[in-house]
């Protein structure tokens, strides 16, 4: 996959890896917006939402495998964050802080949801047909020759939902969102060793659940 295509794919999934300078600029811009939002400037908060909405939504969607739940939880996370802006001291980045709010609310939600999982999956974007790795994985390398993308999507989501919330979160943030172990550790509030071990265990579980598609 070319760099441009990869960046396009990443953007579509809410995954973008900016340079250090871009990060510094974003931090400064975010800090200004947070200050304005704290004073009740909803236009500033609107900008903050637009900055983070895709990444937060994507995480919550992959945690719940349900568009409606992800929609509600993302909205609630942004509302909760707005009400709690005074408690944001800037010790972590706003990005990490709002991620924590969103993730904690989602984990609480999933615990209440019990084991009843109602999948409500989003459609694949058009780029998936242009991803040669995925196309070959589906059509050539799996023993299930008749497997199509939709079926694979369902199996993948079912396998994800079999993981515990903490393991699903780590796989989502690392393998789907593309976050580093350090970033995940800050969000989940644990050290990178724990993140790595959870990731390893979660991958093992997924591999067992999806063995038919990975031979």
């Amino acid at each position, binding site marked *: 996959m070319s760099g441009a295509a990869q960046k396009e794919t990443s953007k579509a999934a809410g*995954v973008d890896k900016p340079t250090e300078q871009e990060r510094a600029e974003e931090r400064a811009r975010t800090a200004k917006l947070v200050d304005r939002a704290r004073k009740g400037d909803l236009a500033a908060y609107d900008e903050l939402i637009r900055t983070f909405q895709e990444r937060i939504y994507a995480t919550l969607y992959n945690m719940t495998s349900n568009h409606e739940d992800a929609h509600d939880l993302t909205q609630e996370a942004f509302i909760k964050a707005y009400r709690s802006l005074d408690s944001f001291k800037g010790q972590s980045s706003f990005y990490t802080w709002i991620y924590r709010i969103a993730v904690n609310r989602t984990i609480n939600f999933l615990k209440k949801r019990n084991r009843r999982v109602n999948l409500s999956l989003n459609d694949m974007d058009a780029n998936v047909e242009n991803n040669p790795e995925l196309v070959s994985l589906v059509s050539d390398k799996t023993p299930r020759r008749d497997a199509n993308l939709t079926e694979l999507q369902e199996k993948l989501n079912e396998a994800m939902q079999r993981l515990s919330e903490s393991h699903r979160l780590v796989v989502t943030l690392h393998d789907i969102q593309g976050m580093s172990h350090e970033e995940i550790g800050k969000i989940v509030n644990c050290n990178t060793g724990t993140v790595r071990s959870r990731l390893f265990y979660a991958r093992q579980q997924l591999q067992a659940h999806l063995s038919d598609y990975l031979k």
Partner: protein
Amino acid sequence: MNDEPKDQEFEKLRQLLELKRHEVPPPGYFEDFSAGVIARIEAEDARPAPSWWRRLLPGIDTSPVMLGAYGVIVGSLVIAGVQLLPSGTAPQGSEGGPQLSATETAQPAATPEAATDLIPETRPVVADLGVDQPETAPLKTLGNEAEHVARSAPTGMFDPPSIHNTSRVERVSFPANQ
């Protein structure tokens, strides 16, 4: 910690998980998303603030148990207040106004003899003070009341203990005020 071998071990899985990145909400979904959040924030702000008693009793709407508990507490307070009220309105060592005099004379008037015994005790006191007031009217009233009580109820049946106590204190302290 080197993740290379582990990452290779899970390479196929990683490729499969890439599929999840292509699951996206309907086109235009994110264009309206922030507007929805802002609208909800504004709607919450526009909602009138809850009254003080609602803030004080947050669970009263949702929890019947809380409602019952509040009922019991309020009921207990009312009962306790009613029981404490008589002793609170008859302070010890007071000057003994007309109301207390009535209580004092009514209580021992459980028998007609007792009621008449009281009259000479109070009459000289008023006379000594030189108060120019009708002496017979209140005494007559008290006497009638005592007779009525004596006829209708046995001794001390409706008299709470506090009234007895108040009467005794008043009787002892009354001469000291002379």
